[in-house]
């Protein structure tokens, strides 16, 4: 429109100047005319110049105008591009939203009307700290732009991350007009980051766990090693390995100690064999050969010589590891068994001594037996003569003796008889110790009843009251056991002699292991303080003139019971009676 304005103006100016020229006349009029013409030309010229100037100016303006249009378009494109690619909002100084672009609406889930006029805090997730926001406000209030990654909350409660750039707009005086926020959605990146972080954390945890378990395993290994070393040391066990092909030998520390050998790194098999006592080297070589050729293991006790020439005993164990039918390595151990071996040898020696002792004992026993035999024969013979001829003296020549002589003769006869009984009992006692036992199932009930009948038959003048209960059978040597009962029952009969109403009770009790037999009388009894003497040979608790006896019966009984694996004991009270007990095992 402006471009038509300038030629019209020039036409309007030309028209009045031409009218004045027509009104003035002649010379003067000519001069005037000339002057007027000159002025007119000048004016026309000036007008032309001006016109030219305006024309130039107009061209410039037009150029400017075009430039402006181009910039405006560029800005509009720019804004459109930013708008499309970012989340844009504009707030005033107080943070109240005045503009929100489509992206903002879309990501926040709020309608534009819900955003405009409200503060940004509407999308605050509460994730960031107070300091975080303080820092933001301080930065932008100072007119500086602020950039950070912010977690926001959408209307539906979901979260999203945005890379936020806030730029304050200032007026000419440097005062803040408003804030422009440009955000890009980094939720996915953030999620990836978090996932990565979690993954990292997990990995770290696993690594640390693995490390820990590795450390523990290491510790365990160290402990095991230490234990092995300690055990080796204390058990005096050394281990070794022999690489057959390479011919190399490994010895553990303890092995060097065992053989009191210097720690050599390289030893040949031959060198190690040399520690074996020459007597046993053959066996060792054979064992190694068999292990290499056939893979046979060995375990043997060998005499060895240490580096310092001390003789030791070693238990050597070796075994082969084979690959493709060939022995690759030999491994094994050597244990110092010198002490055990010495002890064994000591035992052997002791056994030999014991054997010779027992042989001596056997000899002594035989001697004792022959002694007993000779006592049996030789001692009884003269006694029989003393007794027999004293009797003859009495029978044939008693009339020739006075009272004193008769009394003396009686004493001789009585004592010879007593000595005979002593010898007989002693022999019986010794016989019971030596006699071979023949065990069978014995009906003790029957046995006791028979004995009671027999013995009671000799006591016709007395009114003996026997109470015989049920009596357990037993596995025993019948003859010997009979002797026990005879001795105990005759004792009971003997020691109840002074009781006008003698009562003797016999019975037994039993459990799984043993049977306990008892015989109880109401006789003279004895004082329990002498009970220890009761079962000893020739020990008597009563004077000979009170009760006859040699003091062997109970000793014989004890010997027999003990030989059967049983026990015998007694309980008594003076003048009230005694009870004798003995046991016989059920499984003899």
């Amino acid at each position, binding site marked *: 429109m402006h471009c038509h304005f300038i030629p019209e103006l020039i036409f309007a100016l030309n028209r009045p100047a031409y009218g004045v020229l027509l009104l003035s006349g002649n010379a003067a009029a000519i001069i005037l005319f000339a002057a007027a013409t000159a002025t007119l030309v000048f004016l026309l010229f000036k007008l032309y110049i001006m016109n030219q100037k305006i024309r130039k100016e107009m061209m410039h303006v037009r150029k400017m105008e075009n430039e402006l249009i181009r910039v405006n378009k560029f800005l509009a494109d720019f804004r459109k591009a930013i708008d499309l690619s970012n989340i844009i909002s504009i707030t005033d100084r107080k943070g109240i939203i005045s503009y929100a672009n489509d992206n903002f609406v879309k990501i926040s889930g709020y309608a534009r009307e819900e955003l405009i006029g409200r503060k940004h805090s509407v999308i605050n997730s509460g994730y960031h700290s107070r300091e975080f926001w303080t820092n933001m406000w301080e930065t932008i209030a100072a007119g500086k732009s602020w950039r950070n990654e912010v977690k926001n909350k959408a209307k539906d409660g979901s979260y999203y991350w945005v890379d936020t750039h806030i730029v304050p707009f200032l007026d000419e005086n440097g005062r803040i007009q408003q804030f422009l926020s440009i955000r890009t959605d980094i939720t996915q990146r953030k999620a990836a980051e978090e996932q990565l972080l979690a993954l990292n954390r997990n990995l770290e945890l696993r690594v640390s766990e693995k490390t820990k378990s590795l450390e523990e395993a290491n510790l365990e290994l160290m402990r095991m090693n230490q234990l092995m070393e300690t055990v080796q040391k204390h058990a005096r066990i050394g281990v070794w390995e022999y690489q057959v092909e390479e011919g190399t030998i490994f010895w553990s520390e303890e092995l060097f100690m065992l053989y009191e050998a210097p720690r050599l790194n390289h030893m040949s098999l031959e060198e190690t064999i040399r520690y074996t006592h020459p007597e046993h080297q053959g066996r060792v070589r054979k064992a190694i050969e068999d292990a290499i050729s056939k893979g046979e293991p060995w375990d043997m006790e060998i005499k060895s010589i240490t580096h310092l020439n001390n003789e030791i005993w070693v238990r050597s164990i070796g075994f082969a590891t084979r690959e493709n039918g060939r022995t690759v390595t030999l491994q094994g151990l050597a244990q110092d068994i010198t002490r055990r071996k010495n002890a064994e040898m000591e035992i052997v020696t002791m056994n030999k001594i014991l054997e010779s002792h027992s042989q001596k004992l056997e000899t002594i026993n035989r001697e004792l037996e022959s002694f007993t035999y000779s006592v*049996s*024969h030789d001692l009884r013979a003269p*006694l*029989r*003569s003393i007794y027999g*001829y*004293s009797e003859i003296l009495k029978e044939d020549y008693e009339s020739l003796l006075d009272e004193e002589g008769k009394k003396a003769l009686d004493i001789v006869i009585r004592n010879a008889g007593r000595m005979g009984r002593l010898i007989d009992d002693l*022999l019986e006692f010794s016989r019971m110790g030596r006699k071979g036992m023949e065990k069978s199932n014995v009906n003790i009930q029957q046995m006791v009843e028979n004995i009671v009948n027999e013995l009671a038959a000799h006591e016709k003048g007395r009114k003996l009251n026997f109470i015989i209960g049920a009596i357990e059978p037993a596995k025993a040597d019948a003859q010997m056991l009979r002797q026990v009962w005879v001795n105990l029952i005759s004792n009971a009969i003997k020691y109840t002699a002074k009781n006008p109403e003698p009562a003797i009770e016999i019975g037994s009790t039993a459990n799984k292991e043993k049977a306990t037999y008892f015989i109880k009388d109401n006789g003279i009894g004895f004082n329990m303080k002498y009970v220890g003497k009761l079962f000893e040979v020739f020990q008597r608790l009563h004077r000979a003139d009170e009760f006859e006896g040699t003091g062997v019966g109970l000793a014989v009984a004890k010997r027999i019971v003990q030989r059967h694996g049983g026990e015998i004991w007694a309980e008594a009270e003076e003048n009230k009676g005694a009870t004798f007990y003995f046991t016989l095992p059920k499984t003899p």
Partner: protein
Amino acid sequence: MNDNNLVEILLVEDNPDDAGLTIRALKKSNLCNHLLHLRDGEEALSFLFSSDPANMHLKLILLDIKMPKVDGIEVLRKLKSDPVRKTIPVVALTSSKEERDIIESYQLGVNAYIVKPVNFDKFSAAVSELGHFWLGLNQPPVKDNP
């Protein structure tokens, strides 16, 4: 017929005192009319094996076991392994109560085994009883050639 053939009881006993007691006991029981006392096994064997058993009237041998030179066991063995003389009753009359002597004697075929008691009364009774038994009650086997 010599005197030996009249012997009815042969006492083999090395101890003269014991022999005295035995003989007295037998005498008291009127059993000692034809008694011969020999003092050891050697004498006994030479007596027993020197005369023809067919002519012997020997009814009992009282044999001590423990004797010098040849002992009673040996006499018993020889006697009992002789097909003819083994029928002569032999009573071991001895001090020995040893089981092995008793067992061996019986194994060799002794007819009785008596342990001489120290007590003279018992001794006398024992000797008298066995004399009566073997000489009176016991029926010897019938001889082939009476």
